């Protein structure tokens, strides 16, 4: 069993938009050895298997399909001089920036001055949703369906039902149609879709009935999906819908498996890593960026976050963050505020993330309040929906040096 040791300046775990963008920035800032560790055979991340537009408006000011976008970002990172090691799976995160890595050539240890975790998100599969029914063939997630159709040209069913109405759910419609399928319906338990207007028009123009107030109760069929039973959430009446596939879409969760088994502090609310506004984790040798921070943002947003945290790591390696004290303000959210990122703020510093990012767990109308332990309050009236980005500028909050905690909540 070979066990080589490799030394790098920055090791980036995950070669999706966030990790690649960080690598580009780090290289542009003159950091010598920037190594991306990508477990798949190709870097590029999730956009690799989103064979539809729009990608790249923020980064390239033009509309690209996912694979083309992924290829471009990979190319950028390569020409910036980042090393991309594909088929490299990080198996352990050790204190101080040491990584255990599996590769087809053998095991290796990578010792990095700084490590950036950019492992992204994945959808919640059927199991964790507790849906009644057997295990017939024809149950999948958008991600799995996309890689089947766009990467491998496989088509597992003909008439799927799409569960959920997030942005990705509409991507599932496009993917299904691309795969020659005829989606039977999109079902959403709420009274409106989760994605923004005018996403519903995708369903409309593609002729896919959008069934609101409709909750999945049971998957029918033993060897193959034969249909589903749904409940009307208003009347409580149930009925069957004939279909041969079920696509579970969205309900993204950060891919934090590695971190969960490590010494790093996780944030139960976001499901990702706990960071300060520079993207630093509880072990200051580790940083995190992109969708590992919270479910879920677009590729473009993750790409931008990659740049932000990449720049912070460069600052750090240049000694610009070394004066920062460990003491930081802890942000805690209360229902219906579902998550807040970053979770720790070091007062009086600029640089890094300029905003608190929030999400709510349900549609809510009222006053968003951010209160510190010194009795100071920041308030703003708003009406927000789940899965929508809410930003609060840190500069507006004017957090004081001696602040201990921030409570983030809603007064409805």
């Amino acid at each position, binding site marked *: 069993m070979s066990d080589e040791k490799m030394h790098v300046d920055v090791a980036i775990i995950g070669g999706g938009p966030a990790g690649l963008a960080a690598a580009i920035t780090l290289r542009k800032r003159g950091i010598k050895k920037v190594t991306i560790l990508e477990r*798949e055979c190709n870097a590029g991340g999730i956009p690799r298997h989103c064979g539809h537009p729009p990608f790249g408006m923020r980064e390239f000011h033009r509309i690209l399909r996912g694979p083309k976008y992924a290829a471009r970002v990979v190319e950028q990172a390569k020409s910036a001089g980042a090393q991309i090691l594909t088929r490299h799976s990080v198996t352990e995160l050790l204190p101080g920036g040491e990584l255990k890595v*599996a590769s087809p050539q053998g095991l290796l240890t990578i010792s990095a001055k700084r490590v950036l975790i950019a492992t992204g998100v994945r959808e919640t599969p059927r199991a964790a949703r507790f849906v009644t029914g057997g295990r017939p063939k024809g149950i999948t997630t958008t991600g799995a369906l996309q890689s089947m159709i766009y990467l491998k040209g496989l088509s597992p069913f003909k008439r799927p039902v799409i569960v959920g109405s997030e942005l990705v759910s509409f991507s599932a419609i496009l993917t299904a149609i691309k795969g020659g399928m005829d989606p039977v319906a999109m079902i959403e338990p709420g009274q409106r879709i989760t994605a923004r207007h005018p996403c519903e028009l995708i369903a409309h123009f593609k002729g896919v009935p959008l069934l609101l107030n409709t909750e999945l109760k049971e998957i029918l069929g033993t060897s193959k999906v034969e249909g589903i039973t749904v409940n009307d959430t208003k009347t409580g009446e149930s009925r069957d819908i004939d279909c041969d596939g079920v696509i579970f879409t969205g309900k993204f969760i950060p891919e934090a498996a590695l971190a969960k088994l490590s010494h790093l502090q996780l944030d139960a609310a976001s499901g990702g890593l706990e960071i300060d506004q520079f993207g630093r984790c509880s072990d200051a040798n580790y940083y995190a960026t992109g969708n590992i921070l919270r479910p879920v943002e677009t590729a473009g947003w993750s790409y931008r976050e990659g740049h932000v945290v990449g720049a912070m790591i460069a600052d750090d390696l240049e000694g610009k963050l070394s004066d920062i004290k460990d003491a930081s303000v802890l942000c805690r959210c209360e229902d219906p505020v579902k998550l807040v990122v970053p979770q720790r703020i070091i007062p009086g510093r600029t640089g890094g993330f300029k905003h608190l990012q929030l999400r709510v767990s349900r549609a809510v109308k009222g006053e968003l309040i951010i209160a510190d332990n010194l009795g100071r309050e920041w308030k703003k009236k708003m009406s927000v929906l789940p899965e929508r980005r809410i930003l609060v500028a840190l500069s507006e909050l004017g957090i004081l040096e001696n602040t201990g905690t921030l409570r983030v909540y809603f007064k409805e």
Partner: protein
Amino acid sequence: MSAETGRFSRLEKHNIFDVAIVGGGVVGCAVARKFALEGAKVVLLEKGRDILNGASKANSAILHTGFDAPPGSLELHCVQQGYKEYLDIFKDFNLPILKTSAFVVAWNEEQIIRLDKIIKQAHQNNVSDVHGIDRDCLLASEPHLSTHALGGISVPGEYVIDPWSSPLAYITQAVLNGAEVRFGYEVCGGQFDGENWLLNSETNEDISARFVVNCAGLYGDYLDQFLLGKSEFSIKPRKGQFLVYDKAATALINSIILPVPDERTKGVVLTQTIFGNLLVGPTAEEQDERNIAGVTADGLENLKSQGEAIVPALREMPITATYAGIRPATESKDYRIFNYQDKNWITAGGIRSTGLTSSLGLASYIFKQYSETTEPLVPPTEIKTPKMPNLAEHEPRDWMKPDYGEIVCHCEMVTRREIENAMSSTIPARDLSALKRRTRATMGRCQSFYCTARLAELMGGDADE
């Protein structure tokens, strides 16, 4: 009938098997192994595309000591024989064992009172290291256990094994030593001419065997009815649902956490799995269907709250997978083994959750009954033993060795080399379910979000389970 009899009589002697085993569950696999090692010409007939397609597919994978089995029962005898034999052979097969030990935990005064009786019974069953443990010691050993625990029993010998590789090892050894396996072979009729059985299937050629062992699990009573005209027992399918927690949850328990059992079932267990997850289950739900084992939202929610009541920190842990299986319970608590000497037929019925442990013991028990009525067999001069690929999380995995090609399933770290080996092994995986049982592929937290497409490609287009 005359036409068939005519064809029957034309069969060459060498085409007649010594024994046909009906059913490729864990019991069938172990029986096939035993008979093959004793020198019998064996055929195993399985209606599914792979072994372990019925009751053996889903269980809690515990290697039982038999401490709580009814004293004097056949189940106890077979469990203890099986336990002993597994410990004798597992290293030869490269099979894993996780020496967890177990605690029976009492949650109320009434259960505390029953502990003494369980200890007495354990000692009566010769599991002499079973002893009481007070609340403080229990919580010291299991710091994440709910503080509502009142005390319990320590069962040092209860371990966790690989529920899929073990039966696969048994049937592989059987085949390496001359046994044959027919998949997709559903026995739908048969005749006994006083000397030999002729078994029929709608889709396959007839099989002739001197002796039949019915290991048909959930369909064992039906097989007896069809071929013998009567069954001494009837299967009462009992569904069990399970929750599988993320690998991070495994650190929350050190031992298997057992409830104080009631008359009907062993109750809900918390155990580590050999694959490094934490398992909560099973439920015990009577149902009529033998082939449908679906999960229910209510059943899973119920298990979740039971699990969280036992280990509160589970609330923070993600759930990786859910599944359900059916156990072939009968009207009796004990195994239903019947030897129809005049029919050259032995039935092994009603083997429930202890079957994984008892199968090796049962195989010896059944072989002994068989050998009492026949001429001695000549065992093979050299016995071949397969080395099984390791799937256990606590033992070195394939990805730790170079040249594995690529990691196909990232959550479970399954390599392309493992997948290719599983597809070309002695009992090859022919669909995704079979591949999953041989490699752990798709068993992980993403439940195939990342790997479905690549797996489907490697399997030649079988897109999902």
